[in-house]
């Protein structure tokens, strides 16, 4: 009797300690951006390999990184970070190299994605989608909006309508740098300081409505809470397709001072519960038809060369494929480390708290 009881108590305790949600053989844990995956692709993968895919979502890269640091590194199999977080993840040992022999479809990628500058030789990354971060605004409010960051940063261009900035400080700082003429990808401390000062002035304007992430900003615009903000080209098209009436008056624009271009890549966490399945999943996504299905669902440009014949027409024109003139002005967000990362963190925390 007492032995039974203590055995019960022990097993309950052990279950608590070990965490009841221990990863199982047949589960894949995918940690992805919100609204970034076609449910049908997940269903197809689950049916093909007889597994369950557990999806978790993040709205920003800092959020993703903090979840990995808080134990996620041994709980998620696949993460989908953007280019400028890739070196950071590699150097902190949060991810593991890919075994290309398990990913035959890797060859489907376009050449520039097989050797990206943020991960030479693509040892850790398999490109997922690529896109741009631009300004989005209500064209009824701003019928003559300039193709410029001044829509956000110049109180004379937008004196009286609420607007938002990005939740991720690096994008804001880049935008402010571009507006000030230092270029979107500036990293010199003087340029940054000037940009941070501009951000502090901007956030203290009466019409500033807050820092929020790219996807929710579209909802705010659609609901009329804000009239200008920042978002991603594909999300803009995705929601426009879903609600054409509301989005008729919303426009997406790449400012002439330059803006962000990004590549999101699939990576496998260092202590992934199920690395084999993770490799199979990456291979599945890199399949020509699945890759096209993904882009057709997401409205983002595909890094998959083999997928091209299956892509919808909308994916071959702006804003998914930026015009050549715009393309020249797009830059990667710089990947920060060491002192420059700390300087950035301090500037950004200063912007947030003042």
């Amino acid at each position, binding site marked *: 009797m007492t032995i039974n009881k203590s055995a019960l108590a022990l097993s309950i305790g052990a279950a608590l*300690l070990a*965490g009841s*949600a221990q990863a199982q053989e047949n589960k894949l844990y995918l940690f992805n951006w919100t609204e970034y995956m076609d449910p049908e692709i997940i269903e197809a993968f689950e049916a093909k390999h007889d597994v369950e895919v557990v999806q978790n979502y993040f709205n920003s890269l800092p959020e993703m990184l903090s979840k990995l640091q808080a134990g996620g590194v041994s709980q998620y199999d696949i993460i989908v970070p953007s280019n400028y977080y890739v070196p950071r993840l590699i150097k902190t040992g949060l991810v593991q190299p890919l075994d290309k022999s398990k990913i035959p479809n890797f060859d489907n990628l376009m050449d520039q994605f097989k050797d990206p500058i943020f991960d030479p030789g693509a040892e850790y990354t398999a490109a997922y989608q690529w896109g741009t971060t631009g300004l989005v605004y209500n064209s009824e409010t701003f019928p003559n909006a300039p193709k410029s960051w001044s829509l956000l940063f110049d109180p004379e261009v937008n004196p009286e309508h609420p607007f938002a900035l990005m939740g991720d400080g690096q994008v804001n700082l880049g935008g402010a740098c571009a507006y000030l003429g230092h270029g979107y990808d500036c990293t010199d401390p003087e340029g940054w300081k000037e940009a941070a000062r501009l951000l502090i002035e901007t956030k203290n304007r009466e019409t500033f409505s807050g820092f929020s*992430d790219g996807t*929710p900003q579209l909802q705010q615009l659609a609901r009329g809470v804000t009239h200008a903000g920042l978002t991603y080209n594909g999300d803009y098209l995705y929601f426009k397709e879903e609600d054409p009436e509301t989005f008729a008056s919303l426009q997406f624009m790449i400012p002439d001072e330059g803006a962000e271009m990004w590549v999101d890549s699939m990576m496998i966490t260092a202590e992934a519960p199920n690395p084999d399945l993770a490799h199979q999943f990456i291979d599945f996504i890199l399949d020509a038809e699945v890759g096209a299905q993904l882009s057709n669902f997401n409205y983002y440009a595909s890094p998959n060369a083999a997928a091209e014949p299956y892509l919808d027409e909308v994916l071959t024109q702006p804003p998914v494929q930026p015009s050549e003139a715009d393309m020249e002005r797009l830059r990667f967000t710089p990947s920060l480390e060491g002192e420059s990362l700390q300087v950035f963190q301090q500037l950004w925390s200063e912007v947030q708290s003042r």
Partner: protein
Amino acid sequence: MRKRTLKRSLTGFWWFTLAFLYLPLAVVALFSFNASNSAARFTGFSWRWYERLLGNEEILSAFANSMVLAIVSSVIALVVGCLIGYGMYRHRHRKLGWLIVLIYLPIVLPDIVFGISEMAFFVQVHRLTGFLQPGLGTMIIAHVTFQIPFVALIVYSRFVGLDPTLFEAAKDLYATPTKRVIHFMLPTIKPALISAFFLSFTLSVDDFVISFFTAGPESATLPIYIWGAIKKGVSPEINAIATLMIAAVAIVAVISLIFSRRRQA
């Protein structure tokens, strides 16, 4: 005369405060039936946001997690807290200052400090030993930790309110300590146990911050799901889930009212 105006203005203020308390909840409920995706204008009645909820596996599993978390943590806290409550009463003449401090600690610690310490600690322990992986288990541990003091204090104050001679009588009546516990102790403190369980359950359901920092990939609770949805910007669906939760709370309130009425009568 002056008294009457005072009373009247107080009545007015009472109704104003009630409106203040219930307006936000009423607006959530109203807009959960809004036909359009607008937070400002009500354009017509529709069930569409509720329809979206049905069959949303994430919400159902978040609901299940919330329930498992609240029930399991409340049961553990009830057992552990009840023991402390009794120990504190029985040995109240000893110097138990350290115990009092220990018990008040979870109550006075700000949520955010509580949640972050647990998270940082669990991560470190997991790195060293492999135990305490973030998930429902760590959330239960964290919730029990903040529930124990409330249970202990409720049980303790119930014991203090009892006539000490009852204990002597029980000693004469029942031979063994086990019998004393089953036939005397537990029935006497039953009301305290019920309200302690109820309070623990409420505290668990009401918590967001501590859950948020101790959760794992598969253990999102309803508040965590709603937080994510707000951050994502999908408003009308949140209205619908929130309305269901408000309705549940309202039902519990009415039940507890009837319950207390019956006891009075």
